[in-house]
């Protein structure tokens, strides 16, 4: 684990920024997460080690965007390539966060970090150089859809960070695409701050190729009356970990999450979510789907925290899982921690296989077993994919990728 050795000796990065120094300091004493901790016990150690085996690459090689721009009005950004942005239009403005704003916000976040829970973010922030941090402040209305790409190039570890503040009454549609080239590791950390009455429709599509690895961490703070929708899809990674932490800081906010992970061969993809309700009248509707084939391993661990202050919380967390092979493995653990006494919370998990009676029904209508399985799987995907803000062009690409998968 080249990176860890360098972190230990504090030789990982030249010209360290203040943030990098803080994070490296935190990591030096215990550079790896505790493998026995709840958050890491199921994580494949050798795959995590493989993630850390590459050298950090701060320079970004030429990146080919996988599909053409849908509309001229769309805003398209690639972290590390064009992080200079200032758009001031009649109805809205998008401007870059100043270095002071960035530092202040990240320092605040780091002060609350827990070594195991936020290890992915600590690693990211200790490796992410200035050029690979994109910080934006958005306000106004009628904002065109935004697409933000992160990618890791072959035989290297790339760390990219995205920080977005949505000001009051702002309504944004944002698609984040994380791509890993062959034998690469991508560390992506994202921070959103949603002010009062703002709304974010957020899509995350992450896919790699042979032996790509991903640590994708998403941190969202919602002020009251804000609405956050997340549709996510992770597939084709040798090792991927998607961590979602959402805090409704004053309650009275809405969160909808629909996520899916697809594993094949000997891949391991996991999703960890932690939703904190720090005020009353919070709302959450979450569904996570896993589909595991061959000898792969899919993991979902979710927790909903409802302290005494969070009365009248209405939260639901469901984990639906489909096993396509006898050798595949799925671990799922949705859980609730409730102190408040006037809440409506539910959680549940199912693990099943393709429905044989549905398959037979389709076959008696002339549809081949392969086609019937595809139809059944696409209906399984449908609920999640239709929640990701994607246009027809991108949908075709997704369709193609999913069929290849």
């Amino acid at each position, binding site marked *: 684990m080249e990176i860890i050795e360098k972190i230990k000796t504090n030789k990982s990065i030249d010209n360290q920024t203040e943030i990098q120094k803080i994070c490296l300091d935190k990591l030096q004493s215990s550079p790896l997460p505790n493998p026995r901790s709840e958050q890491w016990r199921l994580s494949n150690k050798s795959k995590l080690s493989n993630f850390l085996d590459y050298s950090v690459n701060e320079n970004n090689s030429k990146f080919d965007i996988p599909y053409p721009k849908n509309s001229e009005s769309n805003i398209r950004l690639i972290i590390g390539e064009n992080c200079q942005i200032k758009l001031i239009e009649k109805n809205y403005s998008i401007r870059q966060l100043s270095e002071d704003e960035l530092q202040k916000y990240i320092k605040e976040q780091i002060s609350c970090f827990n070594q195991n829970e936020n290890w992915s973010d600590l690693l990211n922030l200790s490796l992410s150089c200035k050029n690979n941090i994109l910080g934006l402040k958005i306000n106004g209305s009628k904002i065109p859809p935004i697409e933000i790409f992160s990618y890791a190039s072959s035989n290297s570890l790339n760390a990219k960070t995205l920080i977005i503040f949505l000001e009051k009454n702002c309504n944004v549609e944002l698609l984040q695409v994380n791509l890993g080239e062959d034998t690469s590791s991508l560390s992506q950390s994202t921070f959103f701050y949603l002010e009062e009455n703002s709304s974010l429709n957020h899509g995350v599509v992450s896919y790699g190729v042979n032996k790509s690895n991903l640590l994708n961490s998403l941190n969202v703070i919602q002020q009251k009356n804000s609405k956050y929708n997340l549709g996510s899809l992770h597939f084709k990674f040798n090792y991927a970990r998607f961590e979602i932490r959402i805090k409704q800081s004053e309650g009275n906010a809405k969160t909808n999450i629909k996520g899916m992970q697809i594993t094949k061969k000997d891949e391991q993809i996991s999703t960890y979510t932690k939703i904190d309700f720090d005020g009353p009248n919070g709302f959450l509707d979450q569904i996570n789907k896993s589909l595991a084939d061959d000898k792969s391993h899919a993991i979902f661990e979710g927790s909903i925290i409802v302290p005494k202050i969070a009365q009248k919380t209405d939260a639901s967390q469901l984990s639906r899982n489909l096993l396509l092979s006898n050798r595949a493995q799925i671990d799922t653990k949705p859980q609730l921690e409730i102190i408040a006494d006037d809440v409506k919370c539910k959680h549940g998990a199912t693990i099943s296989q393709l429905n044989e009676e549905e398959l037979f029904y389709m*076959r*008696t*209508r002339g549809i081949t077993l392969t086609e019937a399985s595809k*139809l059944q799987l696409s*209906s399984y995907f449908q609920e999640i994919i239709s929640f990701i803000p994607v246009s027809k062009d991108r949908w075709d690409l997704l369709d193609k990728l999913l069929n290849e998968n």
Partner: protein
Amino acid sequence: MQSKMKESDPILEVDNLSASTDNLPILKGVSLTVYPGEIHAIMGRNGCGKSTFSKIIAGHPSYTITNGEIKFLGENINSLEPEERSQSGIFLGFQYPIEIPGVSNLEFLRVSTNARRKFLNKEELDTFDFEELVKEKLEIVKMDQAFLSRSVNQGFSGGEKKRNEILQMALLEPKIAILDETDSGLDIDALRIVASGIKRISNAQTGIILITHYQRLLDEIKPNYVHVMSDGQIIKTGESDLALELEKKGYEWTDNFIKET
């Protein structure tokens, strides 16, 4: 009765068919021959093997044929996959049509219809041409176009599901249709719509097997032959008045028949 001279070859010949699931024998030597233009009814108590018989003809993978053969248009189809049987013209109308959430009814019907058309060397239909065809067929079962945009059978009432089955039969134009308790769960009006649909679709070149408990469907569609099944065997075959007799005397009468034989 079935040995009388026929002018054409049979569509379906089931000869001494025995089948089991999980080593449990279900069918114990069933023989049945259906000629073009014939309507056969199979009656019998719950659990006598009627539905299993229909599923085995359609190729359900959970059942193993242990003896006998199924010939369709003169060819042994024992080893054909369910989709191959369907494409070649065997249709099974389900007693409990399956819901498939997330799969649009329209797309499902189009893919099925094209699979059959491909087998018949007919041109496959694109979405627009298919919509024209399906609109025409919807009229047969008095279904609204709104059913097409919903997921297959999801949220359909019992009657709507059965009408959707008959719509599929109309689109697939099978050589033989086995309708498993198509009349169950239908009110009188829905039963008439379904029965009239079946009559409109069937013709002198097709065969129909109706699996039912009740005379009321047979009042609407008069069968040429009625077979009574018990414990995985056909124990009595007669003409349409056998169903009336059965309705009057109940299955106990057939129990006596088993004892006699």
